[in-house]
């Protein structure tokens, strides 16, 4: 009787064997905050922000790592849970350079703080993840101000924040700033369990604990292949895309889904576009076939389209040199020349090679031009490479 039912915040929810409390809640649109949790990888229970109260148990349990079991009665936002979460958030904010919460005067409200920050958006010290940070969102949701107990706050007022631990910037794609790392371990899971590149891991112990690349070297000198998956999953500003820096905050960009232009996997990408320009690319979570994953080319190989060397006008060769021409002139020349060749030597004196990188519609149109207009089947592409 009543098999596989649990009650969350008064709602009865069914569940499948093996689902965690978090899985069940998510499926029923009940929000539980998470930080270290990364869908599809082994739960570590590292951050404890997802704790919930289970009736009959004294301790709070991590919902991402606790399987649902029959008749559980769960509260996700009880006073006890909230107090606990606030404490965790306070510790996290205090443990690093989270200047979004400590960057302004003492007793200010969050609203004032936000306005102040907006006015100062491109200041060097402001965290690049501002507005795109799960820690910031949670601090706001639970109204936790990082100032209390913050030794970083002190440092901030005396010297510049960059003097703490210099961010790693010696590669073209990823900025790694351990001073903003909350040690949730999502990047470690992304690198080891999702992309399986095994470039980064937890290193050292206790207070010394940090994420290390190789034997505590820079990404560049590790097995890192710059797939950027760790950046995509980082909930805070510890890992950010270098190429996107200063090119727009998340609310300013439009997200456009498209397909990667490189290899035959056909990864689904989300283009972050501001003022008609791609400023960043991420993988479409849950999209097929790539389920949010990208490689270095798919994630960072988008800006060729903005190269100054792009062809911008038709060109016609004259006295050995290519010179700019109008569309009409160039199209007329080609049509006339092809007509002449067909008249003199027959349709098969024309041949064409289509493009295996361009869209289907282009290849269709080109073969139609050759077959229906030129009357030749001399159309091919590098089909076998």
């Amino acid at each position, binding site marked *: 009787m009543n098999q596989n039912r649990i009650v969350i915040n008064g709602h009865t929810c069914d569940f499948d064997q093996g689902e965690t409390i978090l899985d069940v809640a998510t499926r029923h649109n009940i929000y539980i905050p998470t930080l270290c949790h990364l869908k599809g990888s082994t739960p570590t229970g590292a951050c404890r922000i997802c704790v919930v109260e289970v009736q009959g148990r004294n301790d709070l349990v991590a919902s991402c790592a606790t399987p649902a079991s029959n008749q559980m009665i769960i509260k996700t936002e009880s006073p006890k849970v909230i107090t606990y979460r606030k404490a965790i958030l306070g510790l996290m904010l205090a443990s690093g350079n989270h200047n979004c919460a400590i960057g302004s005067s003492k007793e200010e409200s969050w609203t004032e703080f936000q306005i102040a920050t907006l006015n100062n958006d491109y200041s060097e010290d402001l965290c690049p993840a501002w507005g795109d940070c799960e820690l910031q969102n949670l601090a706001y949701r639970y109204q936790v101000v990082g100032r209390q107990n913050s030794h970083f706050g002190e440092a901030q007022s005396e010297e510049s924040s960059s003097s703490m631990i210099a961010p790693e910037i010696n590669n073209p794609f990823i900025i790694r700033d351990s001073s903003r790392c909350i040690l949730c371990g999502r990047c470690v899971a992304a690198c080891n369990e999702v992309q399986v590149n095994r470039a980064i891991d937890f290193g050292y112990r206790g207070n010394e604990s940090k994420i290390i690349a190789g034997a505590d070297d820079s990404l560049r000198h590790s097995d890192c292949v710059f797939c950027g998956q760790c950046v995509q999953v980082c909930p805070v500003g510890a890992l950010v895309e270098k190429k996107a820096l200063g090119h727009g905050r998340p609310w300013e960009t439009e997200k456009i889904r498209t397909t990667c232009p490189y290899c035959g996997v056909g990864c689904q990408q989300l283009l972050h576009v501001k003022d008609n320009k791609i400023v960043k690319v991420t993988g479409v979570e849950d999209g097929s076939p790539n389920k949010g994953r990208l490689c270095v080319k798919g994630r*960072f190989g988008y800006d060729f389209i903005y190269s100054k060397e792009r062809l911008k006008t038709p060109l016609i060769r004259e006295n050995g040199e290519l010179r700019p021409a109008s569309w009409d002139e160039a199209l007329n020349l080609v049509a006339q020349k092809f007509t002449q060749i067909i008249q003199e030597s027959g*349709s098969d004196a024309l041949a064409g090679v289509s493009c295996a990188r361009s869209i*289907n519609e282009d290849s269709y149109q080109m073969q139609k031009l050759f077959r229906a207009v030129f009357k030749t089947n001399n159309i091919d592409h590098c089909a076998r490479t």
Partner: protein
Amino acid sequence: MTNSFGEFAKAKMFLVIGSNMTEAHPVAATFLKNAVQNGAGLIVIDPRRHKLVEFAQTHLPLKVGSDIALLNGIMHVLIKENLYDKQFVESFCTGFDELKATVMRYTPEAAGEISGIEPEMIVKVARELASIKPVMVCYTLGITEHTCGKNNVMSVANLQMLLGNMGVECGGVNPLRGQNNVQGACDMGALPNVFPGYQAVGDINARKKFETAWQVTNLPAHNGLMIPQMMDGLVNGKVRGFYIFGENLANTEPDIHKVEHELSSAEFLVVQDIFENETTRFAHVVFPAAAWSENDGTFTNSERRVSRVRTASPPPGYAQPNWWIFKQIAKRMGHNWKSDSAQELWDNEISVLAPNLGGVKYYRIEDDGLQWPCPTINHPGTPILHTNGRFTSGKGNFAPVEWTPPAEVPDEEYPFVLSTGRRLYHYHTRTQTGRCDGLNEMLGEETADISIGDAYKMGIKQDEYIKVRSRRGEVRVKARVTPEMPDGMVWMAFHFREGNSNWLTNPAFDPNTLTAEYKACAVAVEKISA
């Protein structure tokens, strides 16, 4: 691919042959590695010890171009030890006796002699493959870019039919396609023998159908030329007008000297591209095209999935979508085409004319795409081909093949075998990746990969410039000494003009597909004396 990427992570066993997946198809490789971490088996057949070998239970470092001998050897063991799937073979396949007659000559000893693999290893791998069901076979251009490319492909298919691994989830024969839309360009009929949807130009009914749809008469019935024949035509004058759309043939075709001679012989060459490149140097007219993310459209990936491509930025200057350019030429030659956007082309023409794509319409592929065959509007698409033994042409036909050596093999003068391909940080001739911030910083020039043993023998140090020569040309290039390489082999890419492997490669082609033998030619490696 007969199967889909979505099955990778669930598969129990992989055979990867001629595919350096972590560099050429990195995201596909992640799913394969996930499966291995969850306990799946992996056998890698490849001359190089590439990254995936770290994850493999068995690596067979065969000699370049000996695939058929090795696969025949494996099938020999499967038949001799009665390990093959008799029920599948009897119910769904024809030609078993012929296959048997051929592979029976490839004893493990004979196959081992040709491939350089110990006979015991061949027996072991055959048994491993038979011990788990299904096995998913993945391959890439290491199989196709040979003078025996077509036979290589048939050999792989023979193996999978013999093992009964066709038509099932996590099985099948899965070529990972090189370019994003090479599958689509084939589907669209950018081939000399078929209309869109693989309808043969020689078939009168197909021609009638397209004559009606396109409102023309007398569509040509004989097959057209393939690229290498076109290139010959430029020199002998049979091809007078040549139209190259988006391919940098001057760097991608084997034997650059020969290709450039051919291109410079063109009487009238039109090139349509997004950049000036080595090929536009020979053009008489250049059309500026809109690039990826500058117009709407669709790509079809290796698993036959048609996905949307969307506009993010306007094309620069006067650049225009490619389909628009073709339409304008047609107009000037007396044909007024109706469709005026990629969506109209797809929804009103392509999906109407290609039966396998009949159910694919733009409104259905807003999110995840659809995998063809998808014949009707209610069809969910087809992630796995040939289920329940239903092959396209009735039964699966074993086509036994004999091993043939590459067209050019090492000799005294050219003692190394050169094989070529792509590296992680760049794509083909770098017209795109070379213009992306950061990618050049990760890989700034071509290298020639050689083994530690060979480097030691010749006194070549890491990063030292060396000379690599073939009968076609020579390059000066940095040596990359790496444990990935076996002795006697050199491996290079074609990303950079300088040190491009195609100065060296052999323009010898598979007699059927006219695919060039990029994967094998003979070269000499020399120290440049200081």
